[in-house]
């Protein structure tokens, strides 16, 4: 509880199209309603068509900020992760999505921003500036990042090595990182598939981990990535 403080939206001063692609974007009333409706719809779909089950919800911190990292084998992954979050956390949950897939045209950018609440990560030009912006926001705002540290969807269903980018976000901070394993998304809708097939999808959350003591340098980032990769791998067999 505090006195009122003026704090303009993180994307103030940007044109409407720039706002959609801004890493500082904050949802307004329209996006909150659209995103809420989208999550309700996808949750209903996943439960009906894929018998969607969520395990380990108790591992999620009660308050943001925190990060969820998961394996990535399908476009359904981000949908399933967002749908699994409790309603009160949904508005501050941002899937970090590939800029070149979801934010290239204004139409896809509007969809990704308004319905998915996604933030763009430009894979070919993901500079340290963008990572720093995301890290600063994680430390100062009530945000949850939903991240797929493999960097791209698996073509085989197996897990690729986690990239060090996740370390750049959390090394040396007290922000909890929750590992999650998505089982069944890849076989339901692998890369290249236009429509999902029926098939059970299960999401398992693991115990959160903090990296307060990890150094914020290349070695530290690598350590964060490999630790979290092992955490997610461990959930595969649960």
């Amino acid at each position: 509880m505090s006195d009122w403080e003026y704090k303009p939206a993180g994307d103030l001063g940007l044109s409407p199209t720039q706002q959609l692609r801004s890493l500082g974007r904050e949802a307004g009333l329209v996006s909150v309603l659209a995103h809420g409706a989208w999550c309700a719809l996808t949750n209903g779909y996943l439960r009906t068509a894929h018998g969607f089950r969520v395990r380990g919800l108790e591992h999620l911190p009660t308050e943001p900020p925190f990060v969820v990292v998961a394996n990535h084998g399908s476009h359904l992954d981000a949908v399933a992760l967002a749908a699994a979050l409790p309603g009160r956390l949904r508005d501050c949950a941002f899937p970090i999505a590939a800029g070149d897939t979801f934010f290239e045209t204004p139409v896809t950018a509007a969809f990704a921003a308004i319905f998915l609440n996604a933030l763009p990560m430009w894979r070919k030009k993901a500079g340290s500036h963008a990572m720093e912006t995301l890290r600063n926001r994680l430390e100062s705002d009530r945000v949850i990042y939903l991240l797929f540290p493999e960097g791209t969807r698996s073509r085989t269903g197996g897990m690729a090595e986690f990239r060090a980018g996740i370390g750049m976000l959390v090394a040396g901070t007290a922000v909890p990182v929750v590992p999650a394993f998505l089982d069944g998304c890849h076989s339901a809708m692998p890369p290249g598939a236009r429509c999902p097939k029926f098939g059970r999808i299960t999401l398992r959350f693991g115990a959160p981990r903090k990296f307060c003591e990890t150094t914020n340098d290349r070695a530290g980032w690598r350590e964060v990535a490999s630790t979290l990769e092992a955490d997610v791998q461990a959930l595969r067999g649960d």
Partner: protein
Amino acid sequence: MNAFDHPVTLGITAGIVLLLVITPVIFEIFQCAGRLTPELRRELYARYFSWLILVPIMLVPILAGRLATILAIGMLSLLAYREFARATGFFRNRLPSAMVVAGIVLLIFAAADHWYGFFMALPSLTVSALVIVGLLTDQPKGYIQRVALAIFAYVLFGVCLGHFGYFANDRNFQPIMLLILLCVELNDVFAFCCGKFFGRRKLAPNTSPGKTWGGALGAFVLTTALFAGVGQFVFAGTVLAAPVHLITMGALLSFTGQLGDLVISSVKRDLGVKDMGASIPGHGGLLDRFDSLLFVGPALFHYIGYFVGVGLDQPMRIWTGG
């Protein structure tokens, strides 16, 4: 009834189109006479190009009719509130912010239904609701500031701007609104030009460093004269066609128009932002452009309402009956 049946509607529309056509010619004449510096020329052209987009956005709904005008003003209210809420950070208070939006939507409904009693009841009812909704989070620290911000936004962008929507219920609303819009916008242009040529003493250096007494007084005289000159045709046949009323309304418009501008300047200074948004290229946000309208609506609505009434001969409570 065709929008252009009224000679003033036709005249103002034609005049605005003509003005847009000859403005670059005037710029070039001044340029040839050596009166324009390159910076001033760039500034004037930037404003001119945005007017090429803004004029149709303002003109078309008014010419399209009552409901289109009410909906366009409603949209302006909602977008202005959105800009304010995002600039202050108030939008993060989801429930009170949704309440302000609901209050604005109800004002649009009351105007569209032509239900004067509800339109006038809504400010006190919505303000009460905002004060009560503020309690629900059970966070007394900052309560007054949060609620005050909600009321400030609702009254300014919902109630004040909403008067323009209600104006559309008048049989004569097209020429009246075109006259008001023309004068409010030219009031800004007059203040800008007079300020450039005669501006010496700053009007409110801390609030808006660019404004001068010369600009304000020049705009006051020119706008009042313009309103009185065109207004005699708009209000012909009513008590408001008397010179004293025309001059009073013109003066009221210029004065309140400039005050609206100063209020938004003050808000921006307090927030430490240059513009309220970036939705209009070259102008900033909607509020940076439409700030002068804020108090003109209620001032002229109630002046006209007091002397001749607004929409009294038109069907009332169109949807709700009663």
